[in-house]
C-alpha cells in the first residue's frame, strides 16, 4: 500500500512540472500584460511597476525564480488584487469551491445511485424510461442554461431562494449552485449504477443468494456493492467535471471561488494568480486520482492483486 502511494506520488512530479511549465509560458507569452489599462500608464510608471514585479528580467530568469519560489511554497503577490498574495486569495476562494464541490458530489452520489437503483429495479418500466430520459437531458443541457432557468423559477417566480451571492456560506445561497453543479453528475452516476446493477443481475453469486432464500434487502446490498466499482472509478472524471462546472456556476451565481479567480486572472493577465490556481488544481486532481485508485483497490480484490 505505502510503496504504491509513494510510487504514484513520484510519478506525479513530472506531471506537475509539465503543468507549471506549460501554463507559465502560455500565460506569459499571451498578448497583453497585467498593467494594461484603458488609459495606458506613463512609460516611467510602467517601467517601475515592471521592475518591482521582476517582469523586466528575461523570461527564463523569471521562470527560474518562479520555480524556486514555488518550491518554498511561495505563490507570489497577486497582480490585480493589491496588497494580497495569491496564497491569501486562494485561501479565501478554496473554502467556497470546496463546499460547493463536496456538497454537489454528495448530492450526485446519493441521488444518482438512488435513481439508478430504482431504474434497474423497474427495468423497462415507466420509471426506468423517466430516469434514462432525465439522464440524457442532464448530460446535454449545459450548466449555463440550467443555472438561469433555476434562477428564474426559484429566485424570481417563486421567490424561495436568492439568485446569487455567497453571504458567508449561508445554506440558502448554496442550494441553486449545488443543484446546477450536481445535475450532470447525477445523470452519469444514475446511468452507471443502472448499467452495473443490470449487468450484475445474472452473475452466479446473485443466483446463489436468491437460491439461499435471502431477503431482497440483503441481495440488494450485495448488488450495490458490485455496482460500486464503476461508480467509484467515475469519481475522478466526476471531480474534473465539477471543476469545470464550478467555473460556470461561480460566474453565474457570483460566487468568490477558485474557478472565478482563474477566469478573472486569465482575463486580467494576473500571471501569479493564474499560475497559483493551476498549481492548486493540478495538485488537487493528482491527489484525487490517487484516492480513487486506492478506493478502487479497497473495493475490488482483483485490482489489489494486479497492483
Amino acid at each position: 500500500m505505502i510503496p504504491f502511494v509513494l510510487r504514484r506520488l513520484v510519478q506525479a512530479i513530472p506531471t506537475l512540472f509539465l503543468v507549471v511549465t506549460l501554463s507559465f509560458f502560455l500565460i506569459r507569452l499571451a498578448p497583453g500584460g497585467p498593467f494594461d489599462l484603458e488609459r495606458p500608464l506613463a512609460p516611467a510608471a510602467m517601467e517601475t511597476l515592471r521592475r518591482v514585479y521582476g517582469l523586466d528580467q528575461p523570461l527564463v530568469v523569471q521562470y527560474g525564480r518562479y520555480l524556486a519560489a514555488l518550491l518554498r511554497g511561495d505563490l507570489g503577490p497577486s497582480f490585480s488584487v493589491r496588497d494580497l498574495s495569491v496564497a491569501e486569495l486562494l485561501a479565501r476562494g478554496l473554502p467556497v469551491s470546496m463546499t460547493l464541490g463536496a456538497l454537489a458530489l454528495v448530492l450526485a452520489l446519493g441521488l444518482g445511485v438512488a435513481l439508478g437503483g430504482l431504474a434497474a429495479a423497474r427495468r423497462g418500466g415507466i420509471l426506468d424510461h423517466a430516469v434514462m430520459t432525465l439522464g440524457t437531458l442532464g448530460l446535454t443541457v449545459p450548466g449555463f442554461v440550467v443555472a438561469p432557468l433555476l434562477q428564474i423559477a426559484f429566485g424570481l417566480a417563486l421567490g424561495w431562494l436568492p439568485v446569487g451571492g455567497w453571504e458567508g456560506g449561508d445554506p440558502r445561497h448554496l442550494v441553486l449552485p449545488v443543484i446546477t453543479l450536481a445535475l450532470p453528475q447525477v445523470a452519469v452516476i444514475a446511468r452507471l449504477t443502472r448499467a452495473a446493477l443490470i449487468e450484475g443481475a445474472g452473475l452466479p453469486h446473485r443466483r446463489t443468494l436468491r437460491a439461499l432464500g435471502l431477503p431482497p434487502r440483503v441481495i440488494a446490498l450485495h448488488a450495490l456493492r458490485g455496482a460500486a466499482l464503476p461508480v467509484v472509478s467515475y469519481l475522478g472524471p466526476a471531480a474534473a467535471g465539477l471543476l469545470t462546472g464550478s467555473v460556470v456556476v461561480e460566474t453565474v451565481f457570483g460566487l468568490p471561488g477558485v474557478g472565478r479567480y482563474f477566469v478573472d486572472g486569465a482575463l486580467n493577465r494576473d500571471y501569479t494568480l493564474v499560475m497559483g490556481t493551476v498549481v492548486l488544481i493540478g495538485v488537487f486532481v493528482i491527489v484525487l486520482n490517487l484516492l480513487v485508485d486506492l478506493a478502487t483497490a479497497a473495493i475490488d480484490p482483483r485490482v489489489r492483486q494486479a497492483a
Partner: protein
Amino acid sequence: MTTAATPPAGAFARLRRDPAAVSSLAVLLLVALACLVGPLLTGHAYDRIYYDYPRTPPSWRAYPEPGTLGPALDRLALRMRVRAEDVSVTPEAVRLTLAADRPVDERVLGFLARSDLFGPARVLARSPDGRRLSVEAPVRRLRFLLGTDALGRDLLTRTLVAGRVSLALGLLATAVALGLGVAYGAVAGTLGGAVDAAMMRVVDILYALPFVFFVIMLVVFFGRHLGLIFLAVGAVEWLDMARIVRGEAMAIRRRDYVLAAEALGAGTPAILRRHVVPNALGPVIAFAALLVPRVILLESFLSFLGLGVQEPMTSWGVLIADGARAIESSAWMLAVPAAFLVVTLVALNLFGDRLRDALDPREA
C-alpha cells in the same frame, strides 16, 4: 449469407433501420440546413441593428403596429424641424405634409428613410413658397418571428448565424482531434515496445492536466482568434482518440493478414496505411460523432465566459450569455438559442450513440 458484408455496409444497413438514428440525423440535417440557408431567407442581416425595435418579443405580427406610427412621425418631424400635418396612415404607406416657417429642404426626407419604420419618401406636391411639402413614404413592414435582442437585432437570424459558427467550429475541432489522435495512436500501437510505452506515457501525463483550465489559457494565448482557438481545442481533445486507436492498432497488428503482409515485405508505413488505419476507423468514427457535441458545448462554454467568439460575430454560447443577462425582462433571448443548442446536442449525442452501436456488431 455467402460473403460477409464489410463492417461499414452492415453498419449503415443497421443504422437505416433504427428509427432513433434516422430521426436524430434528420433533425441534425434540418438544423444544419436552417443555419446554412436560413439567414438568407429571414430578410434581416445578423448584425443589422433596428433602433426602433429593441427587445421585441417573438410574434407572427408585422411591425410597426398602426397605433405607433403617429407618435413616431411626430418624433421624426421634431428632428426634421418641421410640423407633420394631414397625416394619413394606411397599412402600406403614410402620407403627410411637412410644414415649416421657412422653405422645407428636401434633404430632411432622409430622416424618414433612415428610421426603421419607413422606406424612401417620394415628394407628391410642393407649395409655391416651398414651406409645405406633401410626401408619401412606404411603411417598412418587418417581422421578428423569434423577437429581437437588446440592441434590436433579429434573434432568429442571429441564432442561425451563430449555429453556423458553432457547428463549423465543432466539426473543425473534431477533425483536428481526429487527425492527431489517429496518427498518434496508430503509430504507437503499430510500433509497440519502448516507443509505444514512451508515447503513451506522454498521453497519461497530458491526461492528468486540468483540461478546461488549459483550454482557457490556450484561448487567452491565441488572443481570441477563432480558427486558432479550435485548433487548440482539437489539440487538447485528441487524447481519447489516440488511446482508442492504439488499442485497435495493437489488436490489428497481431492479425494473420498483417503478419502475411509483413512477410511479403511491406514496411511499417504501408501496413499503417493499408491495414491499421482503415480497420480502426469504425470505433474512431463513432467516437468522433460523440466528440462533436462535446466540442460544441465547450465552445459555448468559452463564449459564455466571454472568452470565445467576439461581437458582432456570434455563437450559441454568446447568445445564451446575453439571454441569461436579460432573463428577467426578455426570457426569449435565452430560450431561443438554448433550445437550438440543446436540440442539436441531444440529436448529436443520440446519433453518436446509435452509430457506435451500429458499428459494433457485438452490441447489436
